[in-house]
């Protein structure tokens, strides 16, 4: 039986048949606005709030204030408390991109991972991380090494990438093959707003439900509706793929 890390997100742990495989890295893909960062925030917040597991949030996209405001707007009221207590460690874009010196930040991060007992990590986004390497082969090699380092440090990680599901001929990024799991977030516009879906396409060492499930983003974050019948009732035109 593999060890699992619960996301604490309603419905998601159920379709994952218990949670994400511990010490693995899962790629979280989807277009802008699909909820990748929100899922990341929720994963880290639930980690300490529900499971007493400290986490690290790396963001090339936002600064500490943005993250706090995003978290609080979702009703994660104790976010700042956990940040102050050191149970949520944030490396925001200002830190990561300070004087173009990502390497210095990386050294600090690796040292902190070594000295502390963090259990969860979110990297938003992996696409930005890739820019620090000169060519594709180098990027792949070092991404694998980075994933090894995270796993060996006891971390269960989520990494975001802006990639649409369902168009393999367009661009299947190598990242999909390198990471242990793949979760896609999808959205389709409707007359009244947007329909959101989540699809767990892959999870190594683990059986998961690979159907596409509807989800919502509201106060409290993401809720996944495990009841697939809600989805099967949709018209074919509404299919996200």
């Amino acid at each position, binding site marked *: 039986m593999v060890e699992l890390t619960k996301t604490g997100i309603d419905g998601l742990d159920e379709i994952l048949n218990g949670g994400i495989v511990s010490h693995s890295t899962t790629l979280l893909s989807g277009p802008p606005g699909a909820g990748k960062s929100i899922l990341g925030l929720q994963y880290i917040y639930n980690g300490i709030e529900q499971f007493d597991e400290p986490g690290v949030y790396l963001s090339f996209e936002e600064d500490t204030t943005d993250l706090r405001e995003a978290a609080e707007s979702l009703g994660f009221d104790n976010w700042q408390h956990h940040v102050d207590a050191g149970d949520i460690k944030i490396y925001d874009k200002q830190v990561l991109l300070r004087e*173009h010196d990502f*390497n210095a930040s*990386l*050294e600090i991060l*690796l040292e902190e991972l070594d000295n502390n007992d963090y259990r969860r990590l979110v990297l938003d986004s992996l696409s930005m991380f890739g820019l620090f390497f000169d060519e594709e082969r180098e990027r792949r090699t070092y991404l694998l*090494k980075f994933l090894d*380092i995270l796993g060996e440090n006891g971390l269960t990680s989520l990494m975001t990438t802006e990639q649409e599901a369902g168009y393999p001929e367009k661009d299947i990024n190598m990242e999909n093959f390198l990471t242990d799991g793949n979760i896609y977030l999808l959205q389709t516009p409707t007359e009244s707003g947007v329909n959101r879906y989540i699809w767990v396409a892959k999870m190594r060492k683990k059986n998961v439900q690979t159907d596409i499930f509807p989800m919502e983003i509201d106060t409290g974050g993401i809720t996944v509706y495990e009841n697939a019948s809600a989805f099967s009732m949709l018209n074919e035109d509404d299919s996200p793929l």
Partner: protein
Amino acid sequence: MSSVELLQALGSKYSAEILDATDEPRSAQELSEELDIPIATCYRRIDELTDHDLLKLHDNVLSDERRRIKVYRRNVDGIRVSFESALSVDIEERSEVTNTLDEAWRSL
């Protein structure tokens, strides 16, 4: 290359400015314009610094006119000159993301 020659290369006019500006890859043309260095001098300094491994050819990038342009990055984080026993110059090579990950990965 002797320590004295290295110090001379470092002491040449514009050398320090070029190293300061090449935290990110820069072409000779860009350096010449940004730092107000005559272009011929700029090429000479770049050669000199490259010979001493203080500067490194980073890449050949394609320009808007589809020409290949050489861009350079500095290869040092710091330099320490010591006169204690004999003159010595220690070059602290610039650490790279790949080095950092290699090191962490090897120590797993």
